[in-house]
């Protein structure tokens, strides 16, 4: 009984991180705080005063330090932020010079926080043990791998892909859990382009399939995101239908998220008069899902 409230809290931390990042990013582009707060994910809400205080800090290492010390230290995501600060302090001590663009900076912070959250969540599930761990370990590992691959993929063409940054910064973003860790992530560090990424993923059958969807893009009309989502939905459906574990709650939230994504997709299609594309969403608990049709 004492375990499930923290489990539910853990689910919300992800959204809290996202909200903090949204607020930070929003202030860089100089948007109105009220407008930003309306966009925040309701599961990751802080107190109003906390949210209003976040954008008052400047986006510099000093500013983040202040942000943590005055505001975020009180919030559940504070520990992750402090880890991040520690991390960047270490790096600064190493003598690396960072000249990353501000926008990318925010993305890096976000990836780092999410990484710490994933690892923390994973450890928490491990401490619960039982079916919860069996279910959540699978989900979180895949989530970590997905993040690692996406980070690598999105870094191409940004300063993050420069050889010096790869080892110093990109490496730090890869979560320390998942099927890719450690051998896979080691390979990912040296990857410089899509071709290299494909080669690295060949050793992992579960991801090479998804990667092929991407590299032969256009064949199945599917993006790599869709392929990941499809995989997630299958896993989450399993978790949701399972019994005697807390993973249902996580699965419920994530499946709802997918449903919302689907609705957004459909309304986008209607808005842009693209009725042919309308069926390209990832169905949840549907008899017509592609992976179910294939089986029959």
């Amino acid at each position: 009984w004492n375990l499930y409230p923290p489990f539910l809290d853990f689910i919300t931390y992800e959204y809290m991180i996202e909200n903090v990042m949204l607020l930070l990013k929003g202030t860089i582009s100089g948007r109105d705080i009220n407008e930003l707060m309306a966009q925040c994910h309701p599961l990751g809400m802080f107190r109003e005063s906390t949210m209003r205080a976040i954008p008052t800090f400047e986006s510099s290492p000093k500013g983040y330090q202040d942000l943590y010390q005055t505001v975020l230290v009180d919030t559940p995501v504070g520990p992750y932020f402090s880890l991040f600060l520690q991390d960047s302090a270490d790096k600064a001590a190493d003598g690396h010079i960072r000249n990353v663009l501000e926008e990318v900076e925010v993305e890096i912070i976000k990836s780092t926080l999410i990484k710490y959250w994933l690892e923390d969540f994973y450890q928490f599930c491990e401490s619960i043990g039982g079916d919860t761990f069996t279910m959540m370990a699978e989900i979180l590992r895949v989530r970590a791998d997905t993040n690692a691959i996406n980070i690598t993929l999105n870094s191409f063409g940004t300063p993050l892909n420069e050889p010096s940054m790869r080892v110093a910064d990109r490496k730090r973003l890869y979560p320390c859990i998942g099927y890719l860790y450690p051998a896979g992530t080691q390979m990912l560090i040296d990857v410089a382009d899509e071709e290299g990424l494909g080669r690295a993923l060949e050793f992992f059958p579960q991801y090479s399939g998804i990667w092929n969807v991407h590299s032969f893009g256009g064949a199945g009309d599917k993006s790599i995101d869709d392929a990941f989502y499809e995989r997630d939905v299958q896993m989450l459906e399993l978790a949701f239908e399972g019994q005697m574990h807390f993973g249902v709650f996580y699965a419920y939230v994530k499946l709802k998220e997918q449903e919302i994504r689907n609705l957004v997709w459909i309304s986008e299609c209607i808005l842009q008069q693209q009725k042919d594309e309308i069926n390209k969403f990832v169905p949840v608990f549907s008899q017509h899902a592609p992976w179910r049709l294939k089986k029959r």
Partner: protein
Amino acid sequence: MTRWFRSEEMEYVSLIVNEDAAHQCLSDLGKLGVIQFTDLNPDLTPFQRRYVSYVKRCDELERKLRFFANECDRFDLTIDNAGTVDAFLNAPPVISSPTNNGESGAQLLESLEVELEQYESQLKDLNSFSEKLTNEYNEKVELQEVLEKAQKFFLSDAPRLAVSELTTQTTAAARQDREINLLNDPESDESLVRDMDMRFSSITGVVASEEKARFERMIFRATRGNCYIRFASIDEPITDPETGELMEKHVFIVFYKSASIETKIKKICDAFSAHRYSLPDMDDAPAVDRMLTENAQELADSRIVLHKNQDTRFRLCQKLAAHTERWTWIVLREKAIYHNLNMFKADVSGMLRGEGWILSQQRDEARMTVTKAHANMDLSMASLLEVMPLPWPTPPTHFTTNKFTYAYQEFVNTYGIPRYREANPALFTAATFPFLFGVMYGDIGHGLFLFVVGLLLIFNEEKNDNARLGEMMGGLHAARYMLAMMGFFAVYAGFLYNDCFSLGLDIFGRTWKWENEDTDDGPDDGSEAYQLSDYGSDDSVYPFGLDPTWHVAENELLFFNSFKMKLSVILGIFQMFLGTCLKGLNAIYFDQKLDFYYEFLPMVAFAGSLFVYMVVLIFMKWCINWNSRMLDATCLDPDGEGWGSSDYEENGGVWVVCNNQYGEGCTPWGYTCTGDDDTVAKCSLDFGGDGDGCQPPNLITTLINIALDPTTVEEPMYDNQVTYQNILLLVAVFSVPILLLAKPYFLKKQMEEAEVRRSQEVQVHGDEEEVAHATGDHHGDEEHGAGEIIIHQAIETIEFVLGMVSNTASYLRLWALSLAHSELATVFWEKAMVETLNMNFFMAFFGYGIFAGVTFGVLLMMDVLECFLHALRLHWVEFQNKFFKADGVRFTPFSFRDVLNEAASGSS
């Protein structure tokens, strides 16, 4: 009676009305509430329909009315009741100024729109004005508080603190000193202070109390402790201008040194939406005083304005509260009309056509209403309301209910709506449900409580009818007659069991007496009771119910269990047999010969030969004078006690003279006993078996042996019992295959005949290809159909045959619950009451509390619910599965009364 037994007859009609008169017609028909329109435009989305703009306008009006209701709520004004729905419907549609009936529909809506629009804008203006005023007022109040608090602070606390603060500006090491100074000796170093005239900047403002701690912490962190902050609470809570709620607030003052800290603090103030107020120079006392008085003056002024505004709003809301419900009803009615008009199709020029189900009896009335509406508007085009052939096979089911049958009908409807015109179980449920409840709940005392509650509800009927009741109370109100009936039957069964709070009542004088009852000691354990008058005589029978002596007898449970068990089986079999007969009635009514001959009759045969026979045996055993029969097989001494007892004569026996040859005695009919006679030899009846008729049988063994050992009956009750039972067994056994096979066989035959006829017809017309096609097609269908029919019939058969057995057992819950009830009551009485009564006055006082509480909670609440549920189950499952199809469609007529009542119950 027939109206309750079978649902109302329905007709499918088409209605053609002039477009101009359509609104009037529908508003009259809605008042009548007898017609259910079918959607003739199923392919159109709601937005493509004819009257969608009207519906939208109604929605907009509803939104406004909800807004009014919310505003009234903020002033704690309750929406006035607009009287009864009926009165509203019969009154002509008026808003506030009377309108003529010419084009009342659109006009009504329009004038209502204008009026509501006006009120809404008024209210909105007032609200925004009020928000502005409140803001201004709050600022004044806060400023006043800030000034007062600051003044106080600077006069009393500041000099003392300034001393300690100022001593410490040089090094970090000096911090310690400051702390010590602050604590120990603020007066010291005064000279030093004078020298260093150094000023701190300060920010003052107001922050919400609940944020105070976090605010303080954040400022401390942001400035790294390089500031000094003080709080003072504002006594009077301040109204939040947006929500109108009261908030506690605190005045704060922060002292700091550097400009960078100032920007930080200002940012934090903004984040906490804390108002900042700039203070005048505090050393300039007259300026401060001036500011205070000025502000006080302004405060008083704005308070007056604010109160005036509030007053105006309140009066407007009062006015709105008086009308809102009536307006809501008007809007709902108009909306219902346009919704239904949306189902109409445009016919030839200017006419609208609608179709729907109508109650046959009210058809003429509806026609007259429509004609009258047209005549009133002087429209030359005639309206039409004509019966059409049925478009689909099942018309909707509608029952006319009254306030007594309503609850029972809802009961049945909850399980399933009866098929159109099939036998309605509600009619029987109305009698059997409370009765079976009573059988389980049976207790005079507890039942009386229930009865009184029911009567109270009935007594307050009219008041409750018009009042808005909560969900719980509303349910009780709807079931008031049922509750009263349940209470009544519980009391009745309580008298039968002679059970009042688990005690027997000696009302008619008991017919038993204990052996040493009259001695000083009284009867003790092991005493026997004897009957006061002769066995079988009129005096020996307790006039109503059971003799109270049984309640103190040691074999109380044995006796009651036997009685209640038999009673439940008898009641159960009667009810199930009634259900089976209703199946027969349905078959006759719908003219389904196969069902009647091959389903109903075998079922009756099966149920009758085994289960009704069981009831017959039970009654027979009760009726036979076993004293006499057993005497018949008893060896007596002709000179001894008991010889010549009247018991034997009563049953037609004649005492025969007997010479006691062997000294063993002889039976009353003259058989001379030897040492080792068995009952067969001693009994004069000669019915066979071991008992030979003189032995009371064990009914369970007898019944089981009907099937297990058909050749003998161990303890018969009448002559030739074996033969009769074998015949009944044969009837039962043969009825099963008939039930299983006959109906599918005849159905198949009918289908084949139809097939032959059809193919003949086709051959006459002579299109070879078509024949091949047709036969091929139908062949497949038929195979499929026949298999399905057989499976269906097999299920039906198994369900009935096994069901009779298991359902009979299921009725034993009547006994089980009644036993549970009486045992619980006994335990509560003995443990809580009797034990404490024997201790002392004080304990008895407590004991009574416990007894009353537990009796109320467990017996009057939980046990009522439990018995209710079990009675419900007996009706839904055991009774209704014998005949009830429950696949009907509910008739939902277009009726304003329903629409408004639903809205009223939803809003409360």
